[in-house]
């Protein structure tokens, strides 16, 4: 199978089919992430179109040394989704959704691809292995787009405590996830 990176290179050369294939591989993941952050399906559509539009325009600047294509797309999707949430002034609802994520992760329909289901199981288990306060702080940062001091305010915890939780939680996640997913 063509590698993701090869697809991105073909996109940089203007190959539309490569874009379609990249969407087939990563569109669902981007859509799921967008939905988790923005909530509304119509907004998630907009985010996904934006994400692949940006990937199309910036394909030539993609640097494989900085991470996988999947995490590149996820970064764009997260940023665009959080921008949209902020632009619409819906931050508090986004935070509620962020808080709901781990609760929901149990009983949802299976993903289409086996790899994604497996990878997802691994991350969900790793997150579940973290002490609750660490997991919560990390989820608020990632899905809620909050900074450390905003998380401290949100949870009414001292900033130092939040910093320690995020650091310790991320170190543990890195160990559990084996460091490399590319």
């Amino acid at each position, binding site marked *: 199978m063509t590698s993701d990176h090869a697809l991105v290179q073909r996109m940089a050369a203007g190959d*539309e089919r490569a874009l379609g294939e990249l969407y087939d591989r990563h*569109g669902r993941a981007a*859509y799921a992430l967008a939905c988790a952050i923005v909530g509304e399906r119509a907004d998630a559509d907009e985010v996904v179109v934006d994400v692949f539009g940006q990937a199309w325009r910036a394909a030539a600047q993609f640097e494989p040394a900085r991470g996988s294509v999947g*995490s590149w797309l996820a970064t764009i999707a997260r940023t665009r989704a959080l921008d949209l949430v902020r632009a619409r002034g819906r931050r508090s609802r986004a935070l509620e959704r962020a808080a709901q994520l781990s609760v929901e992760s149990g009983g949802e329909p299976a993903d289409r691809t086996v790899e994604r289901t497996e990878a997802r199981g691994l991350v969900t288990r790793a*997150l579940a292995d973290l002490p609750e306060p660490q997991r919560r702080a990390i989820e608020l940062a990632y899905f809620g787009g909050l*900074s450390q001091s905003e998380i401290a305010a949100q949870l009414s915890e001292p900033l130092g405590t939040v910093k320690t939780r995020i650091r310790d939680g991320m170190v543990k996640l890195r160990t559990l996830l084996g460091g490399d997913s590319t």
Partner: protein
Amino acid sequence: MTDHEWLALAAPYALDALDGDDRAAFEAHLAGCEQCRVEVASFREVAGQLALVAPAVEPAPGLRDRVIAEARRVRLLASRIPRPASRIPWLAAAAALVLALAAGYGYWRERGDRRALEQAVLLARDSLAARDSLLNAVLAPNVGTANLAATGKPPSARLFWNPARRVVVIAVFDLPPAPAGRTYQLWGIATGKAPVSLGVFNPGPNGRLTTALAVPAELVFQVTAVTEEPAGGSPQPTQTPFLIGEVRRSE
């Protein structure tokens, strides 16, 4: 800060959770610290995997077509941009940015009253009403905005363009005053055309400035840039812009 303390910032940085000052300081440190860069990269992969926790939702079948249509539209836009003349190489950078424009930001051709505009600009200079005027210019519907940055590092600027009033408000951050006999000049650049001056400005010793500048009649621009020029400004830029940004329509 000790090496150990810097390294401790890698995880929150990769999660995009550092507060502004910490982030700026850490980014400056990152530029010269390979160990921290490696650490950030490994945490970035961890953060990237968090995306997988999002519950699966099946996208609408039409979404793929929309994605492809967007790419076609971008290409069409790109094909309309003439090759930049080599004697103004930095226009190439501007053209590249235009490529990055997702269209649909639209063109605004509303015609404002010239006198009202000049008045607004005068007011915007020093009186108490200046704040109101700036605020109204910025908050009006259809205001275009642009973030001008030098690859994410300071200085930076934010531009608000109110086409109805033909005025731009620019807020500059972390920009030292221009050297003696020099000034900063703001440019509006329409796709494939030569830059048009939007005026000159000079921040105070604190590196900050918010000011209103008049936009020439009929000028519609998609890219905005700042250069350093001889006092009084130049008819055309003589330097490579150190701040550049694309104009977007506000939500």
